């Protein structure tokens, strides 16, 4: 049952075929067997998970039948969880037991889910390979010599390897979608403002957005139903009624206008990924969709603009890690400046420091206009490109990543790592919703397809993704290597 979708587990729980305690124990067993190899979890909450599962079973016995009741999930370790270690993948927070819950966490508690643990991630969500975590690399379950993608690599791996039924992630430049693509799962980044950021440790405030990582588009819809909606504790959370995202999953796609950005099929895209996405487009045509080329003229500037905006915001967001009120403090500081500098130099990893430096530089006197202000203007141009394209099409489809997962340790220079997110970053700059769903396999590794929608048109993306998954089974592919290893199917 652990390889089933949330929808299937939910039905089995409702039918009384299985209890939450049983399925929870099954996942805990699987984590115990595989986490040593995959390193997907930083913290496993065995005792509390079983208590929550028991409580869910009791609630069900009393007639509670909410869809996610008793479903075991994992949270990316970027979400603050009360009384549970919350590290954000950093030495800086290696000892930080949060005194409060993120709104997202709170909502899943209210929905009756079971928290299995906290997943590994790139430090402060800065990375595309999960190699920047203070808690070690996460391995791709399809081939453990390969990266799972990042920054939500622990969550993507955990879902792909059936260490949990579903997981949360966060996406600042592709951090849900790219690992979803590399691990062969469904990842969804909602519209900016759709999901509360309260309690989600900030990387780049104007870009960060939490979303689900699941085994199907339907599961993503079920998670989004719980996660979305106004939170007055987050000023950027949008006051907009939340629809039932599962309601329109089955709508036929006849007449759907799909935009294909020519810039996403240009130089740098691997042949396999291109072919897989083109095959998927052909599938959509069979379902009645109309394919149109669209022009995202400024998309080649998105990485440049992003590497100003995100580090600039991050440089300020990470100033609070100063060794004064919580977290890491260096040994025996000789004075205040020494405390700041050694705490931060020892507490942060190389990539985080690099981005703080870039952000600090971009905001420093004399450079603001050339960097930060310029990047904000590019951001406007990129948003305008999307607005124009969406006048003609309903969704935009292209590859999530130019290629399949790469080998651990193979990308040592930051710039080539940054270019990994070339197709995903523009979506964050514009604040749009987008999903990545499995679209094929190459050399034993999964490939992902990105579906971008209009603002608050999550339901349409889910519909388009779900219909594809009704007619193909790429999302059902499982890594055979691990199934044998764990001894459980």
């Amino acid at each position: 049952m652990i390889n089933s979708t949330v929808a299937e587990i939910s039905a089995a729980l409702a039918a009384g075929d299985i209890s939450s305690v049983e399925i929870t124990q099954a996942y805990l067993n699987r984590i115990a067997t595989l986490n040593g190899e995959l390193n997907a979890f930083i913290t496993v909450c065995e005792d509390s998970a079983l208590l929550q599962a028991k409580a869910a079973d009791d609630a069900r016995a009393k007639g509670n039948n909410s869809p996610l009741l008793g479903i075991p999930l994992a949270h990316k370790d970027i979400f603050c969880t009360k009384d549970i270690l919350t590290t954000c993948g950093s030495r800086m927070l290696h000892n930080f037991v949060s005194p409060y819950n993120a709104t997202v966490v709170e909502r899943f508690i209210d929905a009756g889910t079971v928290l299995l643990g906290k997943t590994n991630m790139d430090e402060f969500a800065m990375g595309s390979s999960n190699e920047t975590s203070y808690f070690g690399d996460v391995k791709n379950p399809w081939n453990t010599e390969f990266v799972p993608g990042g920054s939500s690599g622990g969550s993507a791996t955990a879902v792909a390897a059936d260490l949990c039924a579903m997981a949360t992630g966060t996406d600042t430049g592709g951090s849900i979608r790219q690992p979803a693509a590399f691990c062969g799962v469904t990842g969804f980044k909602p519209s900016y403002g759709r999901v509360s950021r309260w309690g989600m440790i900030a990387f780049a405030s104007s870009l960060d957005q939490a979303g689900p990582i699941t085994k199907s588009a339907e599961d993503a819809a079920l998670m989004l139903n719980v996660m979305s909606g106004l939170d007055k504790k987050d000023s950027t959370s949008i006051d907009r009624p939340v629809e039932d995202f599962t309601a329109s999953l089955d709508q036929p796609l006849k007449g759907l206008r799909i935009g294909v950005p020519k810039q996403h099929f240009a130089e740098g895209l691997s042949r396999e990924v291109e072919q897989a996405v083109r095959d998927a487009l052909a599938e959509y045509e069979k379902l009645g969709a109309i394919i149109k080329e669209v022009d995202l003229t400024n998309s080649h500037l998105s990485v440049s603009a992003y590497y100003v905006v995100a580090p600039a915001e991050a440089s300020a967001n990470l100033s609070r890690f100063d060794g004064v009120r919580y977290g890491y403090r260096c040994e025996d500081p000789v004075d205040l400046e020494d405390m700041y500098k050694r705490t931060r130099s020892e507490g942060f990893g190389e990539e985080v420091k690099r981005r703080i430096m870039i952000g600090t530089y971009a905001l420093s006197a004399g450079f603001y206009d050339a960097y930060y202000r310029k990047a904000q203007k590019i951001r406007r141009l990129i948003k305008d490109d999307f607005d124009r394209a969406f006048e003609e099409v309903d969704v935009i489809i292209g590859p999530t990543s130019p290629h399949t997962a790469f080998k651990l340790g193979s990308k040592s220079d930051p710039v080539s790592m940054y270019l990994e997110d070339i197709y995903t970053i523009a979506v964050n700059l514009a604040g749009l919703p987008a999903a990545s769903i499995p679209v094929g396999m190459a050399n034993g590794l999964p490939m992902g397809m990105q579906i971008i929608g209009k603002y608050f048109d999550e339901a349409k993306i889910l519909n388009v993704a779900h219909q594809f998954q009704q007619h193909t089974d790429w999302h059902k592919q499982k890594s055979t290597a691990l199934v044998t290893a764990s001894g459980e199917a």
Partner: protein
Amino acid sequence: MEWETVIGLEVHVSLSTKSKLFSGSSTEFGAPPNTQASIFDCALPGTLPVFNEEALRMAVRFGVAIGAEIGKRSVFDRKNYFYPDLPKGYQVTQLDFPTVGKGSLTVTLADGSEKVIGVTRAHIEENAGKSLHEEFSGMSGIDLNRAGEPLLEIVSEPEITCAEEAVAYLKKLHTIIRYLDISDAIMAQGSMRCDVNVSIRPKGATELGTRTEIKNINSFRFVEKAIYSEVARQQEILEDGGRIIQETRRYNADKDETTSMRSKEVANDYRYFPEPDLLPIVIDDEYIAAVRAQLPELPDAREARFVEDYSLSNYDAGVLVSSRELAEYYEIVARSSGDSKLAANWVSQDLLGLLNKNNWSIADSPIQAERLATLITRIKDNTISGKIAKTVFEAMIIDESGVDAIIESKGLKQVTDSGEIEKLVLEVIENNPEQVQQYKDGKAQVIGFLVGQCMQLSKGKANPGQVNELLREKMQ
């Protein structure tokens, strides 16, 4: 060479909201350290700001009161620097789009002349916590209770030309803020703080000289003294052919001098950028009109009304409106006693003298407005003389009972019984034959002496008018 001084003031005022600018923590003064520091105030990871509507209303209220342009769209920015009392590592403030834009206020100088001083802007920002410097095992202690409290920073145009103007501006600002009820504005407690930018230049020059900034001055008097001393310092340097260094200085009241706040810090680079956790604050004309409609009568308008309605001099009215509480006190006394001029004298001289002597506020006054009004009424209805009233006033400070009870118990009631007065008059005539004779010989002014003798004999209680009349009658 003749020099002229250019001064600009930056005044920080703590807005008296119940909760902090971006969190629901209390702003109550004097709580034990860090008991009013929430997870947001301590900058725990993942916490976010939500803006307090009352801080906005107070800022707009101030803006409307000084006739300022109100920013229909104001934007918060982050000002980045590291300091242990700044938990987030940045202060949220307003750089390019403040809530309050250009306005002005009019000050009255000692010679009675008026001067309009421009206010460049007033922006909303958050306060920092406190570093306590007493020893804690060789370390400093940080209290974040104050961190995140709302401040309004009011920046003047560099149009102030001397210490006197600076103090007049500050006092006027203080009065307005107190009238608006947006802050306690107590300098000694830090709810109003002042930074002074000072430069000098040869008289008539158009370019500004290099300025220095004197930080955190906490009394009007020190502002005045700091400016005198800084101007003298700069003048001496320039006249010796030296050069002023642009820097931050501190005023040392004991030595009456400013000293450089030399810090290891390289020139600050605050790396301002728009605060992404907050959205632009947008207000419309309706909002501004509603705030305007709720404005209280402001000091200038009230002064004019006092002159008009109570026939007071500009000077007296100016003194009485200098604080909202005093003006309100005065109005009660004037109305209840029915004698606005007598009320003005008593309030501006006797009452203010009493308060100043004891360093009391109106709220501390042992003599409430109604009691003072009764006292004045008793002067007017001849129960007591003006002179006896001073004695009663003194008694009222320590005796809480009613004015009449005090007059009664101390036997201070004026003697108006003509029989008793006749006895006094006859006694004085008998004891002062020489003066009586002088009067009869046509030296009319001697009557004053004889009245005085009667008053003395009656211990001041006799009605002087009646005494006067009866004396004349008896000496016919």
